[in-house]
């Protein structure tokens, strides 16, 4: 198998692009895909202060590396979620990555700063662990972006994340979530930071390959709390479809973004107030994170 560009030995096949690439041309291809996404959706420019949510996994570390190589100055924030050795290992990988490249990584510690861990919150609230985790991440990332005056919150969601989430939202016809499934969510007056997803053209397998080829040491093992996660199951199903019909995941997602999302306007979004306890935006008197914290600390 030969590289489409140079005819040297290929190390990866990207069927939906009808292409095989050697290491150097694959890296170039990924950089081009991300640059195109940033440009097409007007995500940010070089003057913006960018904050990247870093997990220690392949997507966030690959994206940090890509943005750094594209010339953007990006700071990272790691959230320690209190998931035993998994969190400690992920923190080490994130710290090592940042130190080796001279990048600024801020660490927020859920148990130390808020008094509870994700496993404790999941048990006390009877939420799925990924739900308690997602809620905590969204809250703390937004709070840090707001407090430290970052212009844009950058997230490492890839093509597979977005396609599986879209699949899930379509199965339930969740109009509210479908309206918000966009590559860019603008900042709001109530205090939500601008949020962008530059990896939506890059498949999960490709971010993993990029990390391996760039020598990025990332957390390979899955989070122990994510066993049986529904979105991961949808990803596996979509990959079976992708194997039979290359390009089906990208067609599903980008077809929705080009022709579907306009039918789900954000007009019915409720008015937001400030949480009575923390001041973050919320649709009710007390925000979901403060309610989760209260339930967990009472348990």
């Amino acid at each position, binding site marked *: *198998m030969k590289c489409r560009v140079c005819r040297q030995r*290929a*190390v*990866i*096949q990207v069927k939906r692009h009808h292409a*095989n690439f050697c290491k150097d041309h694959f890296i170039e291809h990924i950089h081009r895909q991300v640059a195109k996404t940033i440009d097409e959706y007007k995500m940010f420019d070089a003057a913006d202060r960018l904050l990247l949510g870093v*997990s220690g*996994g*392949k*997507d966030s570390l690959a994206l940090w590396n890509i943005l750094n190589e594209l010339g953007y100055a990006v700071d990272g924030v790691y959230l320690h979620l209190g998931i035993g050795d998994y969190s400690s290992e992920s923190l080490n990988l994130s710290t090592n990555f940042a130190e080796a490249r001279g990048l600024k990584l801020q660490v927020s510690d859920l148990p130390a700063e808020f008094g509870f861990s994700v496993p404790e919150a999941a048990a006390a609230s009877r939420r799925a662990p*990924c739900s308690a985790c997602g809620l905590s991440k969204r809250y703390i990332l937004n709070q840090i972006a707001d407090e430290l005056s970052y212009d844009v919150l950058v997230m490492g969601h890839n093509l*597979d*994340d977005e396609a599986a989430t879209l699949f899930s939202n379509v199965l339930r016809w969740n109009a509210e979530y479908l309206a918000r499934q966009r590559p860019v969510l603008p900042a709001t007056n109530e205090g939500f930071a601008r949020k962008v997803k530059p990896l939506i053209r890059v*498949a*999960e*397998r490709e*971010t*993993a*390959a990029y990390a*391996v*080829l760039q020598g990025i040491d990332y957390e*390979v*093992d*899955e*989070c122990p709390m*994510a066993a049986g*996660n*529904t*979105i*991961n199951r949808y*990803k*596996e199903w979509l*990959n*079976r479809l*992708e*194997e039979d019909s290359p390009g089906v995941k990208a067609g599903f997602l980008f077809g929705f973004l080009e022709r579907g999302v306009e039918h789900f306007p954000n007009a019915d979004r409720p008015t937001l107030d400030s949480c009575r306890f923390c001041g973050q935006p919320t649709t009710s008197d007390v925000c979901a994170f403060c309610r989760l914290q209260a339930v967990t600390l009472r348990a």
Partner: protein
Amino acid sequence: MKVVLRNPRREIELTGVKRVGDLFRRLDLVSESYLPIRAGELCTIEDAVDDEDVIELRPVISGG
């Protein structure tokens, strides 16, 4: 050949596999969900393998 799998981490032995693509078929795994890695290098499904190889099939699905 030795095949290294993850989540949970385990190793299995297979013989008579000629190409990486055959490996996926033998194990009934979707190639879109894994990166085949031999001696630290990525492989494609068309790469030849033999019984002396150690191949890691690294899962790529994560998050939730």
